[in-house]
């Protein structure tokens, strides 16, 4: 475990509780509400995401995690609420500008650009390419140099994610897990301040999961803030510094991984009441069941998207 207890204790001011103040928050959200019809998909009073740490956002399916991601990154508009990133309010800022400010997200349903090569996918993630302007695009001399730098960075990242041999293949030819990796690598092309990963491990084969975890730890080592949604409690326990639990749109618990997983409110949220298991000690079958549920959901949605 790379984290010392003292490092973790420095994350918060006061005792762990939903909405607890962080010593150095990078995201602060207040009164964020989003309803679909009558459903309160997100109803967050106050939450802070600690800077430079790995925060896991957990909660049962339909808890509102993805919707909360969409709101924070400008992909959806809330009914109410305000939030800031890196000290500046970004409520109402369009998604592409949020990304340019250094808050990059990935999607639960992978969005690899199938008919572009893996390398082109990567290059698209880079910022400040003058050739993306229509007039300058016509004069290669104005963008070749930058393209070279971008390509080198892309090769670097692809090698780290073991996708370098696929660079010239269409993204469509990658497996589901490889697409997840590509999406994450692509998000890193812009060197973001904060990366938000929506179920990065879903569909990734177990052999790759371990290396993905190391990548995420590496990101933290470079000073990046990571917020990720995950169902696998072993993963959460292994890499998260802080855990935020959502259920029915609300933040129902916050705390250090070990604490949170033995918290009765959290167990109730996941398994209904009258369970007194530690989530981290769920049996293989229960873990598999939770995973299967997500997997099935992902597949259903992907089918819908393909159709």
């Amino acid at each position: 475990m790379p984290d010392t207890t003292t490092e973790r204790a420095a994350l918060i001011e006061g005792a762990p509780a939903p909405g607890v103040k962080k010593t150095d928050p990078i995201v602060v959200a207040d009164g964020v509400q989003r309803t679909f019809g009558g459903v309160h998909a997100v109803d967050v009073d106050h939450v802070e995401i600690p800077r430079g740490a790995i925060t896991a956002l957990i909660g049962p399916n339909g808890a509102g995690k993805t919707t909360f991601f969409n709101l924070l990154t400008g992909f959806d508009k809330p009914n109410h609420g305000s939030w800031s990133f890196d000290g500046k309010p970004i409520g109402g800022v369009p998604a592409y500008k949020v990304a340019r400010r250094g808050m990059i997200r990935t999607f639960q349903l992978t969005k690899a650009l199938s008919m572009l090569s893996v390398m082109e996918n990567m290059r698209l993630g880079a910022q400040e390419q003058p050739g993306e302007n229509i007039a300058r695009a016509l004069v290669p001399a104005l963008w070749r140099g930058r393209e070279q730098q971008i390509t080198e960075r892309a090769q670097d990242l692809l090698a780290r994610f073991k996708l370098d041999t696929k660079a010239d293949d269409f993204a469509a030819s990658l497996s589901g897990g490889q697409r997840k990796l590509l999406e994450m690598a692509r998000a890193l092309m812009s060197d973001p301040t904060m990366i938000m990963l929506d179920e990065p491990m879903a569909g990734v084969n177990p052999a790759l999961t371990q290396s993905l975890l190391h990548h995420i730890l590496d990101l933290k080592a470079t000073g990046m803030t990571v917020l990720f949604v995950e169902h696998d409690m072993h993963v959460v326990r292994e890499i998260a510094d802080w855990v935020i639990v959502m259920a029915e749109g609300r933040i129902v618990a916050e705390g250090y991984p070990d604490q949170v997983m033995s918290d009765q409110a959290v167990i109730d949220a996941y398994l209904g009441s009258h369970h007194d298991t530690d989530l981290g000690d769920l049996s293989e079958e229960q873990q598999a069941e939770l995973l299967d549920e997500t997997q099935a959901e992902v597949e259903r949605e992907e089918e819908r998207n393909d159709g």
Partner: protein
Amino acid sequence: MDFSFLLLALGQIISPQTIAYALAALGLAVQFGFTGLLNFGQAGFMAIGGYAFAITTLHLGFPFWLAVLATLVATTVMALVLGIPTLRLRADYLAIVTIAAAEIVRYVVKTPDLIPLTGGSDGLNGAAVTFDALNPIPPGSYGFGPLRYDENDLWIILVGWIFVILVALLVRQLMKSPWGRVIKGIREDEDAVRSLGKNVFSYKMQSLILGGALGGLATIINIIPTSLQPDNYGTQTTFFLLTIILLGGATTVFGPLVGAIVFWIVLSLADGFLSLAVQYHWLPITTIQQGPVRFIIVGVALMLIVIFRPSGLIGKKREAFFA
């Protein structure tokens, strides 16, 4: 039996009409094939552009280049008017709005009250004056067999083809650039592109403007050897253009050019064979039925292409629209 129609069909390869359709189809390929924008009103862009050219030439006495500029302004305004409210919405909104707008344009220019300006249903004649005035080719008759061209025909064919090829090279350069990468990314998944910090709305707008401008310029080429007829820019024209890009390859730059040539040759051959078939009673149809029947042939040809060559004649297999 008269087989001269074979040569006439060959003439379609270089006819201004083919050039115009190639250019308008290229515009549609930029929008639909590369960006994924469902513009079902390319004929409307063609009409707006054509009327801007003809009206400024005939009524305002604009010199050629200024009238071309008027065309670009008109198609750009149309793209902004149609794009601003729809490009942030789901893709189908653009389709509905463009198809309706194209019809509105056609009905408006045909309004009897506007006859002094637009010529009503008869359209506008004589917009070629400024272009023909620039013609350096000595008067005469050029060509061979039944393919005869006077100096003005030759002038528009030459200028038209050079222009179309230059534009195709330009579009190819754009599509190979980082700009084109963003455009193709939007076709695949615009949210992904947005999440990477690109202003998707602005790119879609640029694509709509560029494609619409090519449609407008196409009409200039189309009307110079003939005249501007409003009914040539109906919904049918948009579907011909879609046929052409699917035929040639919607995600290629030279596909629309090849598609336009093949389309007009096939149409012309079908016409010729049907004339013979009617004349010698090989088929139980009349001359009146001949017109629609050739479109049935085109429709069947299109189905065969979609089935056997889903990426078009020169498209790469992986980029097929109907994979």
